[in-house]
């Protein structure tokens, strides 16, 4: 069922005030830095935290309406929820943990256990069905928690980083399993994640939350192509430079100018892909119109390339091959020249 929530809740010095809407069968990914308020949002949607203000409507049911004094208790909300720290019941076997929701909703023990075992098999922990949660590894526990949330027929799925503890391979298969399940699932899903790949793979829409506010919303492709904040840009691996369009160039807010391929005017964002940035030990000649002096601040190997963070008038990220990195003799502090072709620079309105 569709979800429409607009809630405000004070958390320490910060106020989390978020508007989200999720259609029937849609998956909404919530991205954002640590402490942005993602888990807080899920707790409010689950009924575990009373918002100070706002409404939560699922389908035609009003779950929360602070003004009208309505607050449906959590257990009447038909939820499936994965908590960031699992919270598997320590006194029940893994099977009974997964069967718990079915049992409370009236399913008899036999069928509930059977359904639980089926879900455990789907997330790849069938052989651990009789263990206690204390006897599971971190990733195994997370998978059991996911199974517990998915079994049954919730109206709303709330998944708080459900794949964070999984190893890379299991993550692929569990993500695929989850994707398959969500494709058939008729309710709304809110998925909190730090992994842009999860968002891309699973979500129909993305909202980015920072400091308790929605700063960007859209399809995964849209958000990753046109990030509106530095956080999102970093997340999808772009350098984001706000500036003002002045025809064929953009005057950056931090100083400096960038030549672009289009004509622009007014406040714009300039986004530069790390692959498109070339580094030179001395000022290069040639076609690229954008050439800036910079200094290497950090370098992280990443597969066969090295991701270089550059500081200077125009802060950039550059991906260079490990060979090139070695040949340039780069080390933190080294001065370099960075260049980008104007045609490789994306520019869009702020």
């Amino acid at each position, binding site marked *: 069922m569709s979800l429409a929530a607009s809630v405000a809740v004070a958390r320490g010095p910060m106020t989390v005030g978020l508007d989200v809407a999720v259609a029937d069968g849609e998956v909404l990914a919530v991205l954002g830095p640590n402490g942005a308020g993602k888990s807080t949002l899920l707790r409010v949607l689950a009924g575990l935290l009373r918002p100070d203000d706002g409404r939560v409507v699922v389908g035609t049911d009003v779950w929360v309406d602070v003004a009208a004094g309505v607050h449906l208790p*959590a257990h009447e909300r038909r939820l499936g929820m994965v908590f960031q720290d699992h919270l598997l*019941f320590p006194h029940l076997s893994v099977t009974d943990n997964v069967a718990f929701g079915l049992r409370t909703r009236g399913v008899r023990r036999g069928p509930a256990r059977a359904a639980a075992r089926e879900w455990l098999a789907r997330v790849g922990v069938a052989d651990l069905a009789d263990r206690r949660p204390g006897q599971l590894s971190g990733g195994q526990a997370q998978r059991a928690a996911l199974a517990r949330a998915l079994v049954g027929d919730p109206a709303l799925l709330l998944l708080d980083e459900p794949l964070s503890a999984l190893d890379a391979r299991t993550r692929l298969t569990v993500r695929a399993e989850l994707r398959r399940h969500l494709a058939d699932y008729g309710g709304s899903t809110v998925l909190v994640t730090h992994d842009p790949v999860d968002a891309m793979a699973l979500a129909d829409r993305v909202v980015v939350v920072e400091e308790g506010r929605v700063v960007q919303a859209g399809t995964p492709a849209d958000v990753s192509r046109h990030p509106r904040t530095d956080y999102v840009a970093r997340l999808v691996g772009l350098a984001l430079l706000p500036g003002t369009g002045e025809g064929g160039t953009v005057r950056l807010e931090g100083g400096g100018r960038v030549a672009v391929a289009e004509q622009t005017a007014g406040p714009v964002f300039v986004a530069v892909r790390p692959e498109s940035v070339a580094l030179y030990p001395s000022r290069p000649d040639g076609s690229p119109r954008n050439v800036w002096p910079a200094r290497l601040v950090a370098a992280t190997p990443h597969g066969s390339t090295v991701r270089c963070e550059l500081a200077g008038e125009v802060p950039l990220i550059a991906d260079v091959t490990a060979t090139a990195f070695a040949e340039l003799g780069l080390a933190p502090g080294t001065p370099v020249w960075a260049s980008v072709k104007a045609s490789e620079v994306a520019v869009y309105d702020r």
Partner: protein
Amino acid sequence: MRGRREAGVPAPLLVPALLAVAFLVLPLLGLLVRAPWSELWPQLSSPAVGQALRLSLVSATAATLVSVVLGVPLAWVLARSRIRGRSVLRALVTVPLVLPPVVGGVALFLVLGRQGLVGAWLDEAFGLTIPFTTTAVVIAETFVAMPFLVISVEGALRAADARFEDAAATLGADRWTTFRRVTLPLVAPGVAAGAVLCWARALGEFGATITFAGNFPGTTQTMPLAVYLALQRDPQAAVVLSLVLLAVSLATLLLLRDRWLSRAGAAA
């Protein structure tokens, strides 16, 4: 290179713990050593002693059951609900601990006696009189012992991690289901401890019982009453009787607690 095995009990804990054990166990040893063992057989073979022992065990167990059934919910209300006046209620529940048991017996008369608030009505409506019956023994013991259960279970509930209850709520469990299926198993060791306290206190109950239930062999004479009366005439016999009570309760505790705790432990 230090190769010693894992440190056992640290001295600042071991020393007071040993003192505590000495303090609690030495007097028992003293009793054991000085007890007139020749009295043992005559006492044990006396049917009155058997009767009193059986009545004690039955009524203490019944009082514990009643206390668990009524007291655990009360502990939950004190620990989890947000009703007003909780702290007053908590203190009120603690207070019967302080009441001299004999006065407690008098108080029970005022409510459940022939002329008591509820008792008079029971008498008229159903011809039921409670004082001087085995029921009265159970009631007196429950009145005295239940607060021990309530307070210790409440402490366990406060210490338990309430986030598991949140998780249960998201799985559709209402508070009652959550209580039964999550909270209670999680605090099982606390309930076990409370029940042991309650049972032991009920088993040792004297003042309220003799006041409210009286002392009639076979109906209301529990072991502590028998011990007290024996003390009047033959203190040696009283010591032997107490030791019998001790031995029986020790055996029961060893059997029961280990069984319950190992179950509760497996659940934790």
